[in-house]
């Protein structure tokens, strides 16, 4: 295997795109075969990506290729793709987990009237996501970024007859687009500073001028984009609602890949974040936002009863952990957690999908219970995912989370404390979920639960295997750290005290959960011990009232402004135009009156005067000789009298 394989990396997003085109144009004829086309496209991408990964893992040099896109002024704008270790990891995560989820979907979506539409969207998503991770410049990254956002919109709203689904889809698109504007502004700023949109020239400029405030501002703007996409506080509100989409979508897009794109973006632009040093403002912001998100989402997850919503808030919380890791200088740790989380969270979501599928599309955990017996495969695999997320060694989540906490402790103690608290809550709410779903007796006995078919359980088993073992690549021999690192390679941090702390935290969470829900499984929903928290529970159950606050301070004012401006436009601006029109008409009427009485009046006056003169003058010309003689006589008299006076 030579590094020449990397030259074909650009084909990786092309294959799913071809699958997309085939399904779009022939989907109505293919019907159920469209699933095979989509799976073929995704597996094809995996077969192309896997050798790339192996080549990179053996220490091949990163490659980057450009082609001429457009010319702006005298500057060429080149776009292109690159493969380095970070990209290689992302390619593997996306194509491998993607393939499994595509296979799973072919069973989960069986019988849906929009079957081929579903696989068209999934293929398009794969293409956009792969474009995003392969890009070597901000323009293509942004294109992939918006592309995955579009697919997320289409897939959340897949069952668009359902009003809640279409609202959730719109919300997801708009909230993430708000973040995207930050990313766009960051790109604009970098272009105005460096005249380029490619990573390499921009990052080397940042390295050369580490104290330029511009790069910090750009980093923060880019981070705002990541906050939207990765559902970080305060733009996290879209992700829980996104669970309206089919469950494989939640697994692929809203857990394993797309939401991790924000983390990838920060990792990719780490040169900008790190420009001001290890404690730069940008990194501090990333760390704090990350830990706040991790903690807040974990508290909310505790008080949710919808099986998917718990996982959704858990995802937000874990994404917060990844950001936290990047923010406290644990570049490798953050990326490592991204990878492990992708496996175990995809597993958990697909497992929850299996539960929902076998439980006749009911998602309320309060109606479940005792499913261990009916769904043995689902239970076993879910249990591994649970251990991985809760942070039990040697399962995947333990290693990556432990590393993040280690970095946090060395870096910033308050952040470490908050992070440890979040880890405790994680172990607790996952134990609560396990017990509510699988332990005890089924609470709503009207539903006849059943295990899912093999096409769904086999991907679960594969993912379970990886969730169990993948963490070891970061634990033994530090091979992951050797592979993915920023700047100089650093040894994997591992210290026994920190490991003990995180072990204790996880153990405490599991213990509390077990004592409340496991020892004596819940018989009735009203017995939930959390209800004793009273107001605090209501606060958490209502997700810290974020939606209500946004409705009050953003949505309603915006709608009011739009309505007001619309009235302003109609009444004032258009009113002014019409007023001018009316005034012109009035003026022309006045003008007409003026014309009639003044101008025309003058003309008539002249006429009248002339006529009067004429009429008067007529008497001078009567044609009677006597009259003329009389005038002559009178004239003579006047002359004589005048002469007499003059002579005096």
């Amino acid at each position: 295997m030579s590094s020449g394989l990397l030259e074909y990396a650009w084909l990786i997003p092309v294959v799913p795109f071809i699958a997309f085109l085939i399904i779009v144009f022939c989907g109505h004829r293919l019907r159920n075969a469209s699933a095979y086309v989509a799976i073929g496209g995704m597996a094809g991408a995996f077969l192309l990506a896997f050798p790339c990964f192996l080549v990179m893992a053996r220490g091949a040099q990163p490659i980057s290729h450009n082609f001429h896109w457009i010319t702006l002024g005298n500057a060429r704008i080149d776009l292109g793709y690159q493969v380095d270790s970070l990209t290689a990891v992302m390619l593997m995560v996306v194509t491998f987990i993607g393939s499994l989820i595509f296979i799973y979907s072919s069973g989960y979506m069986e019988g849906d009237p929009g079957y081929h539409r579903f696989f068209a969207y999934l293929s398009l998503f794969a293409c956009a996501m792969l474009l995003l991770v392969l890009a070597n410049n901000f323009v293509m990254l942004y294109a992939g970024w918006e592309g995955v956002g579009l697919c997320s919109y289409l897939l959340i709203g897949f069952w668009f007859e359902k009003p809640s689904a279409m609202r959730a889809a719109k919300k997801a698109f708009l909230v993430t687009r708000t973040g995207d504007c930050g990313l766009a502004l960051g790109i604009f700023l970098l272009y105005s500073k460096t005249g380029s949109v490619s990573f390499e020239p921009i990052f080397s400029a940042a390295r050369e001028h580490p104290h330029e405030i511009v790069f910090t501002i750009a980093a923060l703007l880019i981070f705002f984009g990541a906050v939207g996409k990765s559902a970080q506080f305060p733009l996290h509100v879209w992700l829980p609602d996104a669970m309206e989409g089919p469950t494989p979508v939640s697994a692929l897009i809203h857990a394993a890949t797309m939401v991790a794109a924000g983390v990838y973006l920060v990792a990719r632009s780490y040169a900008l974040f790190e420009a001001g040093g290890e404690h730069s403002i940008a990194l501090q912001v990333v760390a704090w936002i990350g830990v706040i998100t991790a903690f807040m989402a974990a508290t909310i997850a505790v008080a949710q009863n919808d099986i998917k919503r718990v996982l959704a808030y858990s995802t937000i919380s874990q994404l917060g952990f990844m950001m936290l890791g990047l923010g406290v200088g644990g570049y490798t740790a953050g990326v490592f957690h991204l990878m492990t989380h992708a496996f175990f969270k995809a597993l958990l979501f697909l497992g929850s999908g299996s539960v929902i599928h076998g439980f006749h599309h009911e998602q309320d955990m309060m109606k479940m219970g005792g499913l261990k017996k009916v769904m043995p495969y689902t239970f076993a695999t879910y249990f591994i995912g649970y251990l991985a997320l809760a942070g039990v060694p040697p399962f995947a989540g333990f290693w990556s989370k432990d590393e993040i906490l280690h970095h946090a402790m060395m870096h910033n103690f308050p952040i470490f404390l908050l992070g440890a608290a979040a880890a405790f809550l994680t172990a607790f709410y996952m134990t609560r979920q396990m017990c509510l779903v699988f332990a005890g007796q089924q609470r709503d006995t009207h539903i006849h639960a059943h295990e899912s078919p093999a096409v769904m359980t086999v991907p679960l088993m594969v993912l379970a295997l990886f969730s169990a073992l993948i963490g070891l690549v970061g634990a033994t021999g530090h091979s992951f750290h050797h592979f993915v690192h920023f700047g100089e390679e650093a040894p994997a941090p591992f210290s026994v005290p920190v490991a003990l702390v995180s072990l204790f935290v996880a153990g405490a969470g599991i213990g509390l959960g077990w004592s409340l829900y496991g020892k004596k499984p819940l018989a009735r929903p009203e017995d939930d011990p959390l209800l004793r928290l009273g107001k605090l529970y209501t606060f958490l159950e209502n997700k810290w009232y974020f939606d209500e606050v946004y409705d009050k301070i953003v949505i309603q004012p915006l709608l009011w402004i739009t309505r007001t401006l619309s009235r302003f436009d109609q009444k004032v601006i258009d009113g002014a135009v019409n007023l001018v029109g009316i005034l012109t008409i009035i003026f022309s009427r006045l003008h007409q009156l003026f014309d009639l009485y003044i101008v025309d009046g003058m003309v008539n006056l002249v006429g009248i005067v002339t006529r009067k003169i004429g009429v008067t003058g007529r008497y001078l010309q009567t044609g009677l000789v006597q009259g003329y003689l009389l005038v002559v006589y009178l004239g003579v008299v006047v002359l004589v009298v005048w002469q007499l006076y003059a002579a005096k």
Partner: protein
Amino acid sequence: MQSSTFSQWLLTLIIFLPLFGAIAILFLPKDKANPVKWLATIVSFVVLVLCVALFTGFDSTATGMQFDVSAPWIPSIGVSYHLGVDGLSMPLIALTGLLTFISVLYSWIINERPKEYFAFFLLLETGMMGTFCALDFFLFYTFWEISLVPMYFLIGIWGGPRREYAAIKFFLYTLVGSVAMLLAILALYFNYTDPVTGKHTFDILTLIAAQHAKPLLGLAATLSFWAFYLAFAIKVPAFPFHTWLPDAHVEAPTAGSVILAGVLLKMGTYGLVRFNLALFPLQSAEFAWVIALVGIIAIIYGSMVAMAQSDLKKLVAYSSVGHMGFVMLGIAAAAAPIVPDSQATREILINAKVTALNGATLQMVNHGLITGALFLLVGVLYERTHHRNIDGFGGLWKRVPVYGAMLVYISLASLGLPGLSGFVGEFLALLGSFAIFKLGTALSVIGIVVTAAYFLWMLQRILLGPLNERYKDLLDMNAVEKWCLAPLMLLIFILGIYPAPVLDPVNTAMNHLVRDVMGLF
């Protein structure tokens, strides 16, 4: 390359072929509609083919005018028949050819007085083509006014219930601007005297060169600048002169709306670049902030007002106000003065100006394609349901999947999704503008979010949710409608991925323009 006879006659053919078509239509029998429709379709198709020839024959690396012809017309007052195209006008001419052909094709559904309808339509094409080709002010003004008349009748005769009000408003509003422009043209005319012959001239290129060498000064220059601005701002339409647009669109027949939004609005922005920037570089720099402010207001205000509309056509009309705001912002960025601290920064800033202007021009073309397609889709829906109230639909996607997919596609293009052409123009305009107007550009991204919001909200209310029972028998797109939209959708995709075929000639022209103007400072 301009030596061949074909090259010399190409622009003349493009301009006057529709006129001859219109005259020929008048001689056709009144009672039969089909010969009229066929003739109009064939003529507009031939013009489209000629436009393709123009596009492919155009040398995108050469600065200056191509395919130019010049002949004396009224030599005693310095009027000549001078035509030519550069990278600014060529894409707009191609756009006009395409949109006119599609509009004529779509207009086969017109059965009321078809003879006059199609004659006016072809006459309109002559006016638009002439406006973009003319390099003599007398000629330009003539074509500018010619394009006004057929549109007045198209709205006034084949329009909706309030057609007369809308038509008169459109006509008078534009005329006010035109008259101001005429005065400014005369000011330029009398300011220049040929040193050899001692004569005045209406030749645009000569006047531009003269303005750079020995410009009009003081109040006269400022007034002339604003007079041109007024004429073009009304046409764009820029805030606050935009209120004729929603009325005209709502009342215009579908094909009229396509041309109005697709081409007529571009005559305004074309004029701003061609005349305001090139003729008045000093005043443009001085008042660039005004144009930028107008652009930013248009982006935010236009999208916010669009959001509050319940009439689908009004929504699209206000979206045009917002989208043309990006063009205005790009033009303003290109006009604005810069204070570079080094030679390298100066080069970056000049490239940014060119980028902004490239984006503005590309946005003109893309807006033509996208909004043209949107108005067609609105028309398709109106033909079937006879109303345009957004809240009166619901769940149509289930019933009309092809229509739904097309409406989603075009809406996404309009809200600037990467991969579709709307994005490239908007992105480049903002990319360039940001280097010049940091805060203003940052503010205008509010408009981007609101644009996404109202388009998605519109899609939600029309296509998504449970099917409105009134439309359970709604028919999907027929073949003609699909074929009208297919070329637009294809171009939107191609230009979204690879805009270079259009952008290369634009960049050459804009690079030349900006550096030419920057040389004066």
